[in-house]
């Protein structure tokens, strides 16, 4: 195992700890969007942006804040853009 992969393994270990203990760095808006996405993904594999925006948990969030939080969730690995050519579709990733 290389030095980098040892660090990566340690980081993965810390991530498992922060998720179990609820210490992950999700803002309240990010958390609401993630919960909404999780709920919507129960019906279909992918979640659409407009479906998320209309969800009751997210309705009061302004558009710029919503899209910033969405981008951040993708960067943190909680959501990933669907491989589908159609943008605005996301797949919910389970916290590991």
């Amino acid at each position, binding site marked *: *195992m*290389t*030095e980098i992969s*040892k660090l990566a*393994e*340690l*980081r*993965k*270990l*810390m*991530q*498992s*700890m*922060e998720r*179990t203990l609820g*210490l992950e*760095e999700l803002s309240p808006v990010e958390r609401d969007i993630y919960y909404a996405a999780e709920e919507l993904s129960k019906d279909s594999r992918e979640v659409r942006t407009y479906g998320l925006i209309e969800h009751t948990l997210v309705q009061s969030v302004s558009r710029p804040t919503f899209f910033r939080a969405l981008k951040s969730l993708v960067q943190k690995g909680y959501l990933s853009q669907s491989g589908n050519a159609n943008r605005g579709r996301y797949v919910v990733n389970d916290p*590991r």
Partner: protein
Amino acid sequence: MRSWASDTFYASLAYIGASFLTFWVLMPMQNVFFPEYPSRASLLFLPHGVRVLAAWLLGWRAILAMLPGVFLVFATLGGSDVFLTSRLLAIFIAVTTAPAVFYLLKWLGWDLFPAADRAPCWACIMAVGVITSILVSGLTNLAFGSATAEYFAFLIGDLSGLLFLMFGLFFAFRYFEHKG
């Protein structure tokens, strides 16, 4: 070869750093805040965390990687007594127990070593920390012939040490991620 050298350097350095913090920073504070506590054992023994995490990351290579650091710490604390049979036995126990527990669990079908295709389980590492601590404190106290009360002091110190070390790493990663 280069990888062996760097593993040994970092693992031993981590053990020495954790021991320095434990014996020269935390234990003097412990003596100030708990003067009535009679045991010489640390209630926050960070080196236990280093040996458990090193064993998890390096497997049996952790034995050789930790050896220089553990020997230096024992030599610093005990002087020439480090060559007494009981001390050499304690060094042997300190470096071999954690890897042995990981391999024993793997042999029993519970493989906790890092793998690309699965997420690590920190609670399982803590469980290994508990098993290792019970074994290390039991065996070390046998080697030193310490009182029974010391067993519990070692156990508390080891577990809090592992937990605090993991929290320390967690905040260190978070700090460097924000900085970078």
